[in-house]
């Protein structure tokens, strides 16, 4: 028996797509530069040559057109994976996603399912400036009818795609750009994951740090720093941004009674705001301190490296927020 397998997040995404295409003749991938070029983050490198141009399709530069085509294919019985280069460009397809994908199953009285999977890169940190660096998953998590996934670990990147394709409703997968090069281990024997539950990535008793996606590793770093000070932080990886696994959040809050939410999205009207409100609604009497948030600065993400880093949640700020709750000055 082999042990844990080590690979990059990018490779995990690639293997997931390859496996899905090989397993089901209805599955194909399309998007900008995914075929000949191999994907702008090199996720699909080599897949077109191996699997054929009819399974890995290059599309014109029109998000509205190719997302709409994917929705149509899904309604007609296919299982399309549509890659949108970055979530910033998904706004060009927002009408398709909201008014068609999320809505048609309801408006058709259940006659049409839309089993599409939309993959998109999200987040900042690669100096791609304001039009390629935003975190818009919180917006999509606002929309009923969608399931929103944020794989942070290599195992989730490897195994979330299959259940997403099996879901009869549209599923959006947000892959943080800083994770692609990250290496991680797939535990020995792991063959699948669910797309319903949050995960406790680190247990702790003093404060709960709720996060997801690219912020997970910053949050874990903050938890390490806090541990050196004697503060045991519990780190919750949401994994699924809609529908939220509120039971996992509330269970943790009931243990620690203090919460910091870490979200790379902007604070106003953000997913972090929604989580905080859910906690107030469902676990108010468990709280022994105010809820705190660490979000991106409310600016277009800057290009300059130092400004970009200053705009994003960082381990020091996360640790400071948690410390302020556990050991108020």
């Amino acid at each position, binding site marked *: 028996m082999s042990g844990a397998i080590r690979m990059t997040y990018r490779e995990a995404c690639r293997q997931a797509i390859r496996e899905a295409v090989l397993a089901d003749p209805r599955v194909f991938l399309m998007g900008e530069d995914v075929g000949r070029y191999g994907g702008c983050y090199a996720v699909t490198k080599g897949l077109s040559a191996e699997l054929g141009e009819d399974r890995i399709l290059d599309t014109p530069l029109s998000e509205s057109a190719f997302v709409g085509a994917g929705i149509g294919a899904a309604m007609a019985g296919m299982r399309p994976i549509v890659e949108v280069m970055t979530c910033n460009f998904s706004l060009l397809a927002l009408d398709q996603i909201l008014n068609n994908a999320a809505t048609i199953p309801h408006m058709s009285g259940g006659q049409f399912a839309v089993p599409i999977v939309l993959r998109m890169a999200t987040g900042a940190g690669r100096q791609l400036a304001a039009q390629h660096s935003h975190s818009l998953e919180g917006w999509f998590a606002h929309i009923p009818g969608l399931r929103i996934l944020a794989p942070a670990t290599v195992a989730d990147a490897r195994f979330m795609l299959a259940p997403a394709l099996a879901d009869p409703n549209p599923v959006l997968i947000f892959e943080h750009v800083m994770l692609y090069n990250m290496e991680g281990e797939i535990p020995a024997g792991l063959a699948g994951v669910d797309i319903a539950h949050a995960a406790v990535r680190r247990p702790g008793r003093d404060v709960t740090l709720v996060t997801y996606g690219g912020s997970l590793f910053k949050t874990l770093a903050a938890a390490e720093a806090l541990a050196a000070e004697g503060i045991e932080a519990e780190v919750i990886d949401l994994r699924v941004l809609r529908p939220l696994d509120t039971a996992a959040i509330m269970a943790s809050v009931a243990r620690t009674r203090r919460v910091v939410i870490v979200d790379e999205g902007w604070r106003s009207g953000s997913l972090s705001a929604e989580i905080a409100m859910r906690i107030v609604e469902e676990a108010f009497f468990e709280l*022994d301190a105010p809820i705190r948030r660490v979000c991106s600065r409310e600016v277009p993400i800057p290009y300059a490296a130092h400004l970009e880093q200053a705009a994003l949640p960082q381990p020091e700020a996360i640790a400071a927020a948690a410390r302020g709750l556990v050991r108020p000055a």
Partner: protein
Amino acid sequence: MTAFRMPSLGADMEDGTLVEWKIRPGEKVHRGDIVAVVETAKGAIEIEIFHDGVVAELLVAPGTKVPVGAVLARLDGAATTTPAAMREAVVVAAPVRPTPVLPQPPAAREAPARRRVTPAARQRTAALGIDLGGLRGTGVDGAICLADLPSPAAAPATRRGGFDPAAMRRAIAAAMGRSKREIPHYYLSQTVDMTGPLARIEALNRDRAPPDRLLPAALILHAVARAVAETPELNGFWEDGAFRQGDGVHVGWAVALRGGGLVAPAIRDADRLSPEALMAALRDIVARARGGGLRSSELTDATITVTSVGDRGAESVLPIIYPPQVAILGIGRIVERPWVVEGNVVPRRVAALTLAGDHRASDGHRGGLLLARIESKLQEAEVP
């Protein structure tokens, strides 16, 4: 006017909560009087004053948590005498950010703001029927939080003399972390034949009731204190890059507290006390360390610390120096072992003495001398 400040009762203390004033404005005080009770991570400590004078005003209300160095009261006509312990306190207090405590004019007191209570704390106070009036908040923005309430299982908490195990843990973590970061420890150990000394105290204890018996700890302490007096390089403090010798042999005796944590109050001039007097002093500080009522000077005066694991502990201990002291002695459990005496292997009761020394202040040679002196004093036939 002289300021009476929150003293530092050890390198690990950052702040304290004034529990009780023992003086009133207009009252005369003398050096050594107990003027206040302050709650620290080490429990409620009776604070002595180091000035003579008349209390002009009390600036801090009971229940208030203030940082080390904050002015608690002002005295008129005070003749300032600053003993070593207070100098030490000032040194330790220096890095603490100065937080001015402004006297509130009694007439212009603002209407009390609505008390902040966290949802969880409010829930628990309602369930336990606790009145919020007597509580002080230590949570975010001064809110009363769960940590400020008695736990639902516990009987109503007696704050006096009690201590917060979590706070003590943090204090120990801070002091020991600092010690291991800053102090280059050297370690020496020597196993000492205790058969003779034990036989002597057993003979002495034969006709005594248990509460009056002399314990081996007193005998060891007696030897240690006199040996330390002859080895002054290990008795004192490392301060500002230099060694300062203690003004006497004040041995801090580590007392483990029930429920976790420990405190090492000083037995002053231990080298001049008889084993009987040391035994009485040990019983006294252990009782007060566990039950409350340690004095501030007892927490700051120690010039060296002794930690004895007792008769249920390990065979030896490699202790960590309590800064700014420069040495700590560990005494292992007394165990029976095969021992070579004059060419024969015989059963003997032995104990491992260990010394951790601050290599900035002394070298292993000095430390070895100290251990040798302790051993020779333990073998002195006339003691006790």
